[in-house]
């Protein structure tokens, strides 16, 4: 076991959509300050797993804990009671989520996208939130776009704004759901650069992606999922270059 405390602790999580079992007992431990990259074929449950980590998806059984706190449920004896929405929303402010399709608020300017949650969910003053927002935009290289509307930006710029929006709540954990899959190939690099910068600063992150090169460069741990299970995990050098499982080898042979 890693010497660092676990930031994320997933135990025996099962999830089905009707007759379709999407997660069939997933265990995952992510140490604080580490970057975990999740790879695997479409429909393997990667995104669903990520969405259970901030309770965008409810679990059927099993537990998800972030920084020692159960997410979405309260344990009493051998029962898990779902929390009230207000408590779940408070938990989510500590977990940043970046979507494949950005989901910026199109009717708000870039800086308003960044200040909305700190003002309404954390009770910050608009002035303080704006100062933080401008600093974050500077960090993702978009200081000059503060007053633009999202649709005036390229896909890569929009995703960088979305990352800054997640950072505005100063989360302990950042989750990325295929952050570059909706981008034109020439825009992928600028988004990955921002994520790499966050990795260097020691942000705990879980990134679901198809970018194997990015996984090799940035990940502390690569997790390979298939068919609702974690097939194997390990440092990128081991998992990507010398996978133990046949399924991992078959997948890598297709994407590399």
């Amino acid at each position, binding site marked *: 076991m890693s010497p660092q405390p676990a930031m994320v602790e997933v135990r025996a999580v099962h999830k089905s959509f009707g007759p379709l079992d999407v997660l069939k007992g997933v265990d995952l431990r992510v140490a604080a300050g580490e970057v975990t990259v999740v790879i695997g074929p479409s429909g393997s449950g990667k995104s669903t797993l990520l969405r259970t980590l*901030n309770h*965008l998806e409810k679990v059927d059984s099993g537990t998800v804990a972030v920084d020692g706190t159960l997410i979405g449920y309260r344990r009493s004896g051998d029962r898990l009671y779902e929390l009230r*929405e*207000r408590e779940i*929303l*408070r938990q*989510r*402010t500590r*977990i*940043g*989520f970046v*979507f494949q*399709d950005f*989901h*910026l*608020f*199109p*009717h*708000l*300017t870039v800086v308003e996208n960044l200040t*909305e*949650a700190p003002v*309404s*969910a*954390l009770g910050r003053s608009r002035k303080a939130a704006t100062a933080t927002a401008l600093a974050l935009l500077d960090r993702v290289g978009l200081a000059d776009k503060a007053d633009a*509307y*999202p*649709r*005036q930006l390229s896909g890569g710029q929009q995703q960088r704004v979305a990352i800054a*929006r*997640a950072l505005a*709540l100063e989360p302990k954990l950042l989750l990325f759901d295929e952050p570059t899959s909706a981008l034109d190939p020439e825009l992928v690099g600028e988004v990955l650069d921002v994520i790499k910068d966050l990795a260097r600063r020691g942000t705990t992150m879980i990134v679901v992606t198809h970018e194997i090169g990015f996984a090799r460069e940035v990940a502390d741990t690569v997790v390979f999922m298939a068919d609702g299970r974690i097939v194997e995990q390990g440092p990128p050098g081991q998992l990507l270059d010398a996978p133990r499982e046949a399924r991992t080898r078959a997948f890598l042979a297709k994407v590399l």
Partner: protein
Amino acid sequence: MPSGTLRTPAVPSSAPPPADGPPTGAAPPRVVARRPLGQWAAAAVVLVLLGLVLRSVAGNDAFRWDLVAAYFLTTPVLNGLLLTLGLTAAVLVLGFALGTLLATMRLAANPVLRGVSAGYIWLFRSVPILVQLLFWFNIGALYPTLLGVRTVHLLAPPVIAVLGLTLHEAAYAAEVVRAGILSVDRGQTEAAQSLGLGRWRRLRRIVLPQAMRSIVPPAGNMLIGTLKGTSVVSMIAVNDLLYSVQLIYHRTYQVIPMLMVATVWYVIITSLLSVGQHYVERRYARGTAGAR
């Protein structure tokens, strides 16, 4: 079209020109648009017909345009107009407030809330507005007293007008708002949830402002419909614009001129509302392509 016409001057002039193409090196051929002669002929016929109608209207003394002008700005007419405008505004605001509540109920997970909302919309869309107004007008027959007060005193005709029109409006507004909410990408709600925004805040700050783009055009339509629809309250002796001119023509027997007074006012207000709608639409188009 012969391929030769697409040639650019970059083609070496030594190459032999195609038989049906233009001489190379010459200026590019001029474009001549097709002339829609048939449409121009139709337009001329329409103009002549329109002229005949206008001449007959202007030349018909029974319109009594002098009387229209004389009564147009009189106190009873203006009071009636004011009541019509107030009634329209009250019904729009209250109708959309109730309609938004019904729309959120209709979209709730709870089957009872959904069912009650659907039932309301079904019932109030099924009964003609005039029948509803007459029903409320006679509600005293069912409940002689309400809250310890005689119903006829509590529910005066203007109150019944607001009540009846609002309940009717809300059923339609609910569907307009529901369509607007459904037009907003589900990802917007998820993004707001992941940022910890509460249910009410999500609706007010994220979903409804985006839904407004789809809500405003049909709502503008409804507003104009409501403005004109308020004229049915003249049936329960509420002193609106139509009822005011009716009072006058019952006395003077100048039916057509007085109806023209009301008609011109309705047209003026409707035109102003259409202009207003344009600006409201522009406001809610913020952030969309081509708008700033």
